[in-house]
């Protein structure tokens, strides 16, 4: 019995140890705009997804939860916030559903296509790059933001200035992701210096601890982390890819896609898009660039 108590204590100690990795929680990680005007009596004919939404009376939207200022879930309140979240709310409002009728569901990158194919989510807003391979399985509205691969380094680091200065540096990103594949394929650093985790936040923790030298992925994501720790981190600012972010929809639901594209176009034209940007990603000090929609 005594042994068991000891074991329980040890295990509890181990849990406490693993939990104390990050000190303090950043206060502001999202930002939000005032609620969008909810459209009334929305009629969309011939969209299976919209029919399902109507039957359910609520929306299920796939998002990310670990990207401050983009798609972030506050661990204490459980509230989602960020640029992607605001875009999701805007689209919902124009479909006739206020923010409290949206169920946000966190979907990891690797499971996005399957979630849309299965119909687990009605649409997906979460740093989802539009590309031809994905278009064979799902469809995209947008792009609502154009990002590009960049590097996040420590503020004091002056050695890493572009992708060509990564030799001998430890570079971290998400397992199997396109950014880390590019680093590998272009041999920007040695294979033993590639570090891959399941989430960017783990990479950022390792960067702050000094165990990796750079975190690489789309600049929009990195800016969110830089805005969280502005005294310790900075984004290098030399993009080496183009990543148009789209809203993922079920394939062949052209009716809904057109509707979402109309919503985005209207938001770009009347300044709503800019307002959303300024209240979220804009806080990092980075300038905004309006995307041009690609309808198909």
């Amino acid at each position, binding site marked *: 019995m005594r042994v068991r108590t000891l074991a329980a204590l040890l295990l509890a100690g*181990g849990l406490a140890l693993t939990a104390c*990795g990050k000190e303090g929680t950043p206060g502001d990680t999202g930002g939000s705009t005032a609620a969008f005007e909810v459209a009334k009596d929305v009629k969309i004919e011939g969209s299976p997804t919209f029919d399902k939404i109507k039957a359910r009376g609520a929306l299920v939207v796939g998002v990310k939860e670990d990207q401050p200022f983009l798609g972030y879930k506050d661990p204490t309140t459980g509230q989602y916030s960020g640029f992607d979240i605001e875009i999701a709310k805007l689209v919902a409002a124009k479909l006739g559903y206020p923010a409290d009728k949206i169920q946000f569901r966190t979907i990891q990158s*690797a499971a996005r296509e399957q979630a849309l194919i299965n119909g687990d989510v009605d649409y997906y807003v979460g740093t989802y790059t539009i590309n031809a391979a994905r278009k064979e399985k799902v469809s995209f509205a947008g792009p609502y933001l154009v990002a590009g691969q960049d590097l996040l380094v420590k503020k004091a680091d002056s050695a890493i200035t572009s992708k060509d200065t990564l030799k001998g540096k430890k570079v971290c990103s998400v397992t199997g992701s396109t950014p880390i594949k590019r680093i590998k394929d272009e041999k920007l650093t040695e294979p033993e210096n590639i570090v891959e985790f399941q989430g960017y936040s783990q990479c950022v923790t390792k960067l702050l601890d000094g165990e990796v030298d750079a975190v690489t992925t789309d600049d929009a994501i990195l800016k969110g982390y830089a805005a969280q720790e502005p005294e310790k981190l900075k984004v290098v600012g030399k993009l080496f890819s183009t990543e148009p972010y789209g809203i993922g929809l079920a394939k062949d639901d052209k009716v809904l896609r057109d509707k979402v594209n109309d919503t985005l176009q209207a938001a770009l034209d009347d300044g709503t898009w800019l307002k959303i940007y300024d209240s979220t990603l804009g806080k990092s000090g980075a300038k905004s660039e309006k995307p041009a929609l690609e309808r198909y």
Partner: protein
Amino acid sequence: MGVLTNNLTLFRDGFATTLQLFLYSAVLSLLLGTFLAMLRVSPVPVFRAIGTTYVTVVRNSPLTLVFGFFVFAYPYLEIIKFDFFTSAIVALTLYTSAFICEVVRSGINTVPVGQAEASRALGLTFPQMLGSVVLPQALRSVVPPLVSTLIALLKNTTIAAGFSVSEAGAIRDSLSEQGANMLLGLTWIAFGFVVLVIPLTLLQRVLEKRWSVAR
């Protein structure tokens, strides 16, 4: 077939790393596990307590937690720096040896007490008794559960994918990023594991035949 042929290096490197992880941690956990079993049956109460505590604590912790500890918490203790591959081997070894220990101990329990008593009457010391009388017989009788534990270890290596070791478990992430057919991709990964497990099963059969104890 296309999913496999287009990503041949991805699959090859992934499974090569899996195999390395497996071989290192299998050897190490067989050694550590047997040692722990020896502790658990030793005549010294402190040793027995150490063995029992280890098994109770480690066997009750999820493997992901053990990995998380070594990758994210252990570095703060600033003892010895491990790279991610070594961390994975340490985590897998510590975890698996708790199970190996119990398997070996159950094997020791199958050896009649009379043998230990006879060894002692002959003047053998405790290590001599274990090494030349009890363990050889004990290991023979536990070949099937021992191999099962090793097969479990082989499959547990996939957890390392989440902790910066790009082995077979990480293939899925790359495939899905490329937008490859996941059903085919996962089937090929499963097939790869079947290919890796078959030799273990054959080994079990051979050892069982050769080592069978006549009682």
